[in-house]
């Protein structure tokens, strides 16, 4: 199977864009502030170059190409998880009390999603791509779930990411959602078509091209947004917050909760009266 012209076109635009974002990240010193973001960009760039070389050598539809592609995807996925971890740490690290609580919540959320991913993918037949596609789909869902949990915790306590981190988080979410939908569609279509081998090869070739296009176009959009963001100077680091003495929380928090609870109780009485 050969690489289609549209895939060539996407790679010709995408590879320099990835390189540009990477260069801008280093130029803005993000390898010091956001090392895992820089690692994520490098992993993506390396994945693109590596797969380009592999597909040219062994062909697009070969087993070697398939294995290399999914191995590179696994590395990129791991980099994505590390980046989400980095965003969590940056948002909450200064607030030690909240951070101690939040990392446990995020761990539980990711464990629950990962367990669900393992169970879901295990129920799919281990043939061709359906198992891998299902696993990848569910792991993308895990990434989105953890990201939403992080943002909810931040919103609840009135903490916000800065403008660069916000765009990074939005980009990660778009990546994950697009891959999730593309994988879900492909896994279902493959499972349907696998029942009949007649014309499967031609169908798979055609579908593979559109599957790649569907995943690549949003990636180009995300890379463009990241490039535009990093083109401007990055804001200075946030000042560390002044923490209250530990006694303040012990004294005030139960009192506040008691008061809120009583107020809620009265409102309930109001409702019943």
């Amino acid at each position: 199977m050969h690489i289609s012209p549209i895939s060539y076109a996407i790679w010709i635009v995408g590879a320099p864009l990835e390189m540009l974002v990477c260069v801008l990240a280093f130029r803005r010193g993000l390898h010091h502030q956001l090392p895992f973001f820089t690692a994520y960009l490098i992993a993506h760039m390396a994945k693109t170059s590596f797969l380009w070389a592999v597909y040219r050598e062994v062909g697009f539809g070969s087993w070697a190409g398939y294995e290399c592609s999914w191995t590179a995807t696994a590395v990129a996925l791991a980099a994505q998880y590390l980046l989400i971890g980095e965003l969590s740490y940056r948002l909450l690290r200064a607030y030690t009390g909240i951070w101690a609580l939040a990392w446990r919540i995020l761990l539980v959320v990711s464990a629950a999603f990962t367990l669900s991913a393992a169970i879901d993918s295990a129920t799919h037949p281990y043939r061709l791509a359906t198992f891998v596609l299902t696993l990848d789909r569910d792991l993308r869902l895990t990434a989105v779930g953890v990201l939403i949990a992080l943002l909810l915790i931040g919103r609840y306590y009135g903490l916000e990411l800065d403008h660069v981190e916000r765009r990074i988080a939005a980009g990660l979410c778009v990546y994950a959602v697009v891959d999730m939908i593309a994988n879900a569609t492909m896994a279902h279509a493959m499972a349907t078509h696998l029942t009949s081998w007649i014309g499967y090869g031609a169908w798979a070739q055609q579908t593979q091209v559109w599957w790649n296009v569907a995943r690549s176009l949003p990636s180009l959009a995300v890379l463009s947004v990241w490039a535009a963001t990093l083109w401007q100077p990055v804001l200075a680091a946030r000042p560390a917050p002044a923490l209250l003495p530990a006694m303040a929380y012990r004294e005030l928090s139960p009192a506040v909760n008691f008061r809120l609870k009583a107020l809620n109780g009265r409102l309930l009485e109001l409702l019943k009266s």
Partner: protein
Amino acid sequence: MSPELIFAALGFIALAVVTALLWPRHGKRLGHAEIAALAPEDLVLRHVKYFPLVRQALSGADLAGFGVRIPRSVRRKVRAERHKMARNYLEGLREDYLRLERFGRLVAAHSPKVDARLEAQRMRIGARFRVTYSLVSIRLALGQVPVPAFEHMTQMLGSMATRLEAAMSSLVEPAPPPASVNVGA
């Protein structure tokens, strides 16, 4: 529904949620100066003090006293005003609640250690309060004004305010200077 449609729906919902959560909220962000500016006044329940006026306005005695002499249109108008006042008062109580809740979050966010149990409890109370508030609002919209319940709620808020303000004062009061330091000329 096929799995790809389910995942597509999930994906679009996730994108909408993330967009909403990432949208900057300049007014609501915790400022670093905010914690330094914490004061007992933050805990004052501003709307409770208006209750005597609200009670007077909501009381049905004034209308009953006038009996049949009041035309129906005026009676209806007075009733509508009473409901409006009750709604405004309920809104004020909600403001008090939200300010207090925000205060609790602020203290938690700026504490070196938080108790998961207390945080979970506050979240649960917040969820319950929002549901109850909606139901009371619906009840008011349907034309019911439970005056005794309003009074009871107001008394409770007032007594709790005093207790919490005392706790807050002990925390934010500056420590007295050491006796040995002479700041005079």
